């Protein structure tokens, strides 16, 4: 026998199921209990930095769009600071929440975020990471939320020195993490759960 560590184990995840909207975006499904759905506005006033739209679709292993998913994103402001009590390096842009939540369209499966291009955030060893947006995806058929990141195709120089991107063994999969510029200010980031273009998902 030994002493006890007195740690407790993380609650096991269960799927969000097909009706996640009732709890997380009730207004989206026509239940007008709350004033507004949380996370549907990321900019609460004039913001610093480049305003962008990030849009995409999640596809299953057959290439079918998921029309019942919920996507959340979390990111730094234009200076690389988070609007969070855990941020210790400075005060982030007060008009930018950094957090967005979007239900995928019930017909097309498209999700869209009106956000800004994030600044660079340091890795634990002090090196700068390339600009990125953290992503969390839940849906029916997903037992535990999937984590990934959106990097930007037009940040080639920052991407080339990013501590995470540079350690990915299968270089041919890196494009699955890159949002491409569709037109000025609009980036596309499609997510493939399976198949030859399967998105890189993180255990982070």
């Amino acid at each position, binding site marked *: 026998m030994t002493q006890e560590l*007195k*740690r*407790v*184990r*993380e*609650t*096991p*995840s*269960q*799927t*969000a199921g*097909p*009706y*996640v909207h*009732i*709890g*997380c975006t*009730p207004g989206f*499904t026509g*239940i007008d*209990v*709350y004033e507004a759905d*949380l996370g549907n506005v990321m900019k609460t006033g004039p913001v610093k930095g480049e305003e962008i739209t990030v849009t995409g679709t999640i596809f*299953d*292993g057959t290439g*079918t769009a998921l029309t019942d998913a919920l996507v*959340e994103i*979390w990111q730094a402001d234009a200076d690389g600071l*988070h*609007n*969070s*009590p*855990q*941020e210790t*390096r400075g005060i982030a842009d007060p008009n930018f929440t950094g*957090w967005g939540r979007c239900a995928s369209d*019930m017909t097309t499966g498209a999700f869209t975020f009106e956000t800004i291009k994030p600044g660079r*955030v*340091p*890795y*634990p*060893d*002090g090196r700068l990471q390339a600009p*990125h947006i*953290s992503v*969390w995806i839940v*849906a*029916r*058929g*997903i*037992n*535990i*939320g999937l984590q990934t990141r959106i990097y930007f195709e037009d940040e080639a120089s920052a991407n080339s020195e990013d501590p995470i991107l540079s350690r*990915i063994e299968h270089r041919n999969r890196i494009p699955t993490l890159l949002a491409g510029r569709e037109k000025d200010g609009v980036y596309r980031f499609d997510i493939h759960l*399976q198949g030859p273009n*399967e998105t*890189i998902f*993180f*255990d*982070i």
Partner: protein
Amino acid sequence: MAENDTGKAGGYLPRDRAWQPAALTPAYKTTVKRSPQAALLSFPTTLSEETGPVFGHGHLSEGDTDLIHNFAKDGESAIGPRIIVHGRVVDENARGVAGALVEIWQANAGGRYRHKKESYLAPLDPNFGGCGRTLTDAQGNYAFHTIMPGAYPWPNGPNDWRPAHIHFSVFGQAFAQRLITQLYFEGDPLIARCPIVGAITDPDAVSSLIAPLDMGRAIPMDSLAYKFDIVLRGRYQTFFENRPEGS
């Protein structure tokens, strides 16, 4: 002082992937084409995962915790056995998580959800919306007043029924802690038959999702109570600063 409060907080402890459900669990058929097949890319958490938004009471209103009345017409209430669902949100170091956003959703007493894509023949309850939300208090406690959800059939196997359950979405202090799970009720014979519950292989992990009847929190002549504690990821506890100055 909380348990294990031995020093400065480091990054978040990695998820125990053997304790958590796998992505691919074929008995739950929808996972077959929705589960990633490549290995997950493992990295220590960075500031991007160790931070998270703050939810203020300004976003929420007091009535959001009362599912019996938050959708009901004035003077009316939802149909079903009245229950209190309460518990504490802690991290893996057993510290209460204050200000965590807890959002719940559930079927009505007949097992029917209020949702455009739901077509089960059980009737909608005109006085039940099925959602509630709250922020945990300084110690991590939360409570909801609701009705007991019904079991319902779902298209998976030829005759699969979900045990009565309440969905929980929990947002702690960091994006790394983000979690969605489901509460089940003590004594329900459908729990052991459910392919979604069965995605979890460790019996202790399944037990940790089953809320016991809690007569100590019942309200006599009013409501029964069930207790459901939730554990979010915790942080490494380090004596020494392991980040370079200024980062």
